[in-house]
């Protein structure tokens, strides 16, 4: 069973947000680095640099949240693991809870 801290994206420091966006990008299927960057640009409105992207990818991979597939020429696609999906669901639930709390307070103000 995975330890809680291995799934905690907050522990990634400045790579927490890129890591979350990578997990979101891989949620609908495997993608290689360039496709992930383009997808993040569409979803979040900014393109993470290669240093940031692979800093986050190495962290996700070392914790077993994503896994590389067989390479296509020089490109290596990555796939979300079951552990990664669990971590993504947990993070999105936490974000939703915070957003809901914010909305409720604004409605009362």
């Amino acid at each position, binding site marked *: 069973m995975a330890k809680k801290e291995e799934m905690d994206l907050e522990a990634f420091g400045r790579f927490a947000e890129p890591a979350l966006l990578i997990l979101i990008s891989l949620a609908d299927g495997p993608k290689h680095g360039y496709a992930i960057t383009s997808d993040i640009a569409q979803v979040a409105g900014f393109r993470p640099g290669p240093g940031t992207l692979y800093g986050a990818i190495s962290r996700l991979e070392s914790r077993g949240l994503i896994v590389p597939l067989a390479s296509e020429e020089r*490109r290596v696609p990555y796939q979300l693991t079951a*552990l990664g999906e669990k971590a993504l669901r947990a993070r999105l639930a936490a974000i939703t809870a915070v957003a809901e709390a914010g909305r409720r307070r604004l409605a009362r103000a």
Partner: protein
Amino acid sequence: MSWILRLYPRDWRQRYGHEVATLVAAERPSFRLYADLLAGAIDARLNPQWTPIQPTMEGDDTMNAIRSLCAVPEFSKAEQLRSAAWMIGASAILTLLGVGLDALESQSVISRAVLYSAFPAALTFSLRNTYLSVLEPAKRRIVLGVGTIGMFLFMLAVVYFASIAP
């Protein structure tokens, strides 16, 4: 542009280098790109994360996760003991040398520089059996030599300028 990838650790380059190079080739060179790669190189050296496993889909996700976690670089008990021995031994020798020089000439610039650089130099030496062990012997000697001598010269300069400061 490939020169900047050489700032990353060798193991990291072997694992992710060609993927990053492909991505970099598709980007327009810019200050932001260079800064991002430089920050990434510093992070890769300070927080090694890579997992030297080959791309595979054999086994289920749990097994892949376990293999990835087990592949985090570790050092053997013997390497850790040798590293600790270098740290303690070099610290003791350099501290004794500093105390000896201080006995010859109290509060001299050289004795203070030796004392101040004793621990960081010993720490550098202790890396020869761990993080620096991946380097070829010749390169390792250069890193150790330049690191310790540079450390001493830096401390010497600091102590000297502190001593002449009004």
